[in-house]
């Protein structure tokens, strides 16, 4: 288990995610807004590339490419003095953490990656065993927010009392490196604890709570019906539990729930009242951020206006 006391608030490289950037950029701006108000020392580095996760898990990239790209990003993080890689996307988190473990434990792969760097004249990228620690250099932004939960409670400007909410914790946060999760990986409660501190009435367990979002990398694209059936199972269960606000922590889950909820409604002849938000957007909102200029809710597919009006954010 990862003790919450060990989550740092200094030297965090806020790791840019391509799906956040292209689909829900408000997740990045809102998390930055929250970090600023919570006294978190972080940096966004434009030299950092994407983690390759989308290509890796659609089987396009082989493991060596993924490890080499990760090693380059580790060099970028160390070089700028912000070695604590903090992800907005659960897949960036898992890919980086796994690549670090591989580079530390597999000398053959490490040597191969370094020989590629040397051959290409990029000696400054060379990775030495132990340059990064898979357990202490990799975080998800939700862990940092949870470590500041008391400050969030003290400084909240908006109270979510009376809002029935539930969480979807991202699979690649708690099922890949399941021994290194804050709390119990069979029942992660990070999002619930943060939202409860803002007054939300959390449904802490519901049927299919640990079911995946259904995106499944290639599945949404190549096995679309199955993908949407999985998503529907989850949305049905939230509906049965009377949940009006669903909180998540990964842009891929966010696409699946927010973009595809209206598609599922149309194709399966169902109706849902649930609205969707990333936990970073939720915390920013609680701390007084503008729903559009900071949280970027105008990029969402399920309209949030009715909900925001009711809680007094509009």
């Amino acid at each position, binding site marked *: 288990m990862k003790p919450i006391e060990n989550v740092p608030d200094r030297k965090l490289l806020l790791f840019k995610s391509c799906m956040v950037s292209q689909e829900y950029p408000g997740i990045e701006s809102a998390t930055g807004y929250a970090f600023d108000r919570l006294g978190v020392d972080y940096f966004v580095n434009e030299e950092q590339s994407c983690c390759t996760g989308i290509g890796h898990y659609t089987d396009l990239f082989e493991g060596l490419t993924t490890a080499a790209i990760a090693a380059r990003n580790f060099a970028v993080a160390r070089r700028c003095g912000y070695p604590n890689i903090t992800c907005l996307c659960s897949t960036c988190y898992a890919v980086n953490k796994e690549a670090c473990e591989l580079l530390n434990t597999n000398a053959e792969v490490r040597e191969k990656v370094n020989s590629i760097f040397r051959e290409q004249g990029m000696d400054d990228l060379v990775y030495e065993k132990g340059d990064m620690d898979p357990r202490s250099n990799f975080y998800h932004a939700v862990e940092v927010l949870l470590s500041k939960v008391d400050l969030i409670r003290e400084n909240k400007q908006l109270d979510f009392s009376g809002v029935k909410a539930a969480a979807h914790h991202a699979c690649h946060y708690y099922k890949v490196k399941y021994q290194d999760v804050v709390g119990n990986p069979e029942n992660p409660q990070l999002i619930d604890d943060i939202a409860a501190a803002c007054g939300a009435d959390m449904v802490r367990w519901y049927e299919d709570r640990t079911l995946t979002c259904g995106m499944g990398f290639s599945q949404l694209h190549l096995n679309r019906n199955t993908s949407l059936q999985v998503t529907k199972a989850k949305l049905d269960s939230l509906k049965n539990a009377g949940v009006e606000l669903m909180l998540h922590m990964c842009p891929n889950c966010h696409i699946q729930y927010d973009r595809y909820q209206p598609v599922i409604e149309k194709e399966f002849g169902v109706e849902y009242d649930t609205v969707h938000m990333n936990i970073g957007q939720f915390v920013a909102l609680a701390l007084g951020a503008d729903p559009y200029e900071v949280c*970027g809710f105008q990029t969402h597919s399920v309209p949030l206006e009715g909900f925001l009006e009711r809680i007094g954010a509009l």
Partner: protein
Amino acid sequence: MMLIHVNKYDTPECETLAETAKKSIRTPDSLGLDRCIQCGACTASCPAARFTDYSPRQLVKRVLENDRSVLEDESIWSCFYCYSCNLRCPRNNSPVTIVQVLRQMAINEGIGLERLAYFVEIGEYLAENGASKIPGPGVRNMERDLGESWIEFKRDLESIRAELGLKPRDIRDTGSEVRAILEGTGFFEREKWIRAGGRGNVSALSHSASPETVNRETASHETPQCGV
């Protein structure tokens, strides 16, 4: 011809499927493949098993029996990579990472390349821009699914990013380093192999990827309306 030279870390050549799975860098060193007790906890947790005929327990059994026909089984392409089986297995086995190895072994033999063709442009985009994207066929399918409001949002992405105080485009300042890495690892050879449909069989690209993709984009043809 096989593609194994580019992919030897994912699919090290061994006597048996089980040995390849254990030595692959896709699976953890601690992989409990030999310790599998066929309890079915993986299948019980599996979203693909819930809605299709797929069974991670069965796949593990076939790997242990060294049944190489598993590489041609369509069902290996049904996994969501959700890692629920990885979390739940009581024997520290990891069907999800074994399936990743099986898919890579299939790819080496030219199987499933039409699926990869759907995503293949991610490689060049990453080399050029340092970021990934939803590939062209995916964008066009999403345009069909999500309609005008999404297309409009994608057209307005730049101005929304500016409003949020973010840099104009999700293009990173990676110099030519990312391209050099993809060259060094042999990715571009793999890309050519995928685009050519393996074994020089380019016509494989025109087959639809699965029954579900009928009437849906399977590879790059037209430009998306939203311009991404």
